[in-house]
């Protein structure tokens, strides 16, 4: 259990303070997660929309493997367990 110095008094008892962080970081990829379209900041409107992004009929998403690698590296960096499948 947590140290007692994390407690503050409440009307019916003590409250324990528990903090969690949810960190959102953009993957340093030059292409989108499910298409080859570029992610460059400040480009002309609609110049970075692929057929997949526009959900054209018959288009299929393909995962960006660079992003998968970054996710695995992040997991390893956090000493998390990586499931192969």
């Amino acid at each position, binding site marked *: 259990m947590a140290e007692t110095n994390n407690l503050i008094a409440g009307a019916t008892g003590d409250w324990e303070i528990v903090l969690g962080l949810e960190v959102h970081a953009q993957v340093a990829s030059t292409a989108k997660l499910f298409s080859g379209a570029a992610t460059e900041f400040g480009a002309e409107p609609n110049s970075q929309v692929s*057929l997949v992004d526009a*959900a*054209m*009929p*018959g*288009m*299929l998403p*393909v995962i960006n493997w660079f992003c998968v690698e970054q996710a695995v590296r992040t997991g390893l960096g956090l000493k998390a367990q990586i499931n192969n499948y």
Partner: protein
Amino acid sequence: MADLTELNLAEARDGLAKKEFSAVELTEAHMARVSASSALNAYVLETPEKALEMAAESDKKIAAGEARPLEGLPIGVKDLFCTKGVRTTACSNILGDFTPPYESTVTQNLWGDGAVMLGKLNNDEFAMGSSNETSRFGPVVNPWKANGTELVPGGSSGGSSAAVAARLGIAATATDTGGSIRQPAAFTGTVGLKPTYGRCSRWGIVAFASSLDQAGPITHTVRDAAMMLTSMASFDKRDTTSIERDVPDYEAALTGDIKGLRVGIPQEYRVDNMPAEIENLWQQGIDWLKAAGAEIVDVSLPHTKYALPAYYIIAPAEASSNLARYDGVRYGARQNGVDIDDMYAQTRAAGFGDEVKRRVMIGTYALSAGYYDAYYVKALQVRRLIAEDFTKAYQKCDVLLTPTTPSAAFPIGKNVEDPLEMYLNDVFTVTVNLAGLPGISVPAGLDSDGLPLGLQLIGKAFGEEELLRTAGVLEEAAGFDAQPQDWWSA
């Protein structure tokens, strides 16, 4: 010169190679038949200029001695395949006059091998149907008639099957999600091949149920199916479910020798109320393969009875997700509304037909919180058991032989008001999609009304060579050479 539309794909190829006729002559002969065939409603768009341009290019290639495998052979394309610069609608109103700026991988492979495009073929809306009656362009009429009654050509690839049977194209592309190649082939006396899931790229084919959809050909002969598959199949990095595997010359597999082949007969396919004619034809097929040197083995696929219910949860679930994109914003037909939500609703209400709405609603229900585990997850578990049934059966045999359908072609309108009766058409074919296996329907005989009946062979995953070889033997033994009487040519 004999009628060039009487030729099958292999014969036409050989005739072109011997310069007995030109690709332009061959294409013109088919174009003339197509333009006189409006009574069948098989084509939803003819592309005569493109056809003649492609045929002229083929004649140049042939003259230069550079003929490609399908050089100069005119074919029809199911309207589910996106064709660059040529309207593609999946026969749904919601796509309006959508004209793709890209070409599907399968059709690109065919054009790259020299095939000539005659036009786009009718199908059930978004390939949802077993009779080609749900198309925005109206029903396709089967070239075969019984006692003067107009019949369905099967579905969803009804335009493809009718076009090949009526000789409005030497072959056609088609797609099969639950039987949509094999059932129409059986209803029209043609050969329909659904390859292993992953053999042909799905890129550029309008999606119905992504884990089940697979492209394949409808043709006159097994040899023609082998020729078409050799060109259609490829690995495509744009479709992560296509498999990186060499494409053999499937035609070379047609040795005619199946001595020692073990043919499994699944006892669960003897369904109630199956017409005696189909039962007898099945027995005939068993006898033909036995006479050719095959060994007949009884096998069991115990979960077969759960296949249709599982399919009619999985396929609509995937469809409801795949069809979410049709909102009237980026392409296709749009209905105006008072605000954006109303615009979506109006567009989808006007753009989708009844069967598509039915499946979107079933799918959305099956995937919704609270029902997901009871329906969708359960259906996936059943699917796994069905796939395992096949794995176990293939320990005892190499291919399976079954009827393709529980009946011959039925009259237009007969099952329109009864979706469940319509779904029963797929009882022998859906298991193959759920397991991702290859299957082929071969015309094997006529019923007492003079209508064609098909037998289905099911192979192991990527066992197309063995499957086609066996189908070739079955075709040879059946000697099916009946043709529909031409009542439709104007």
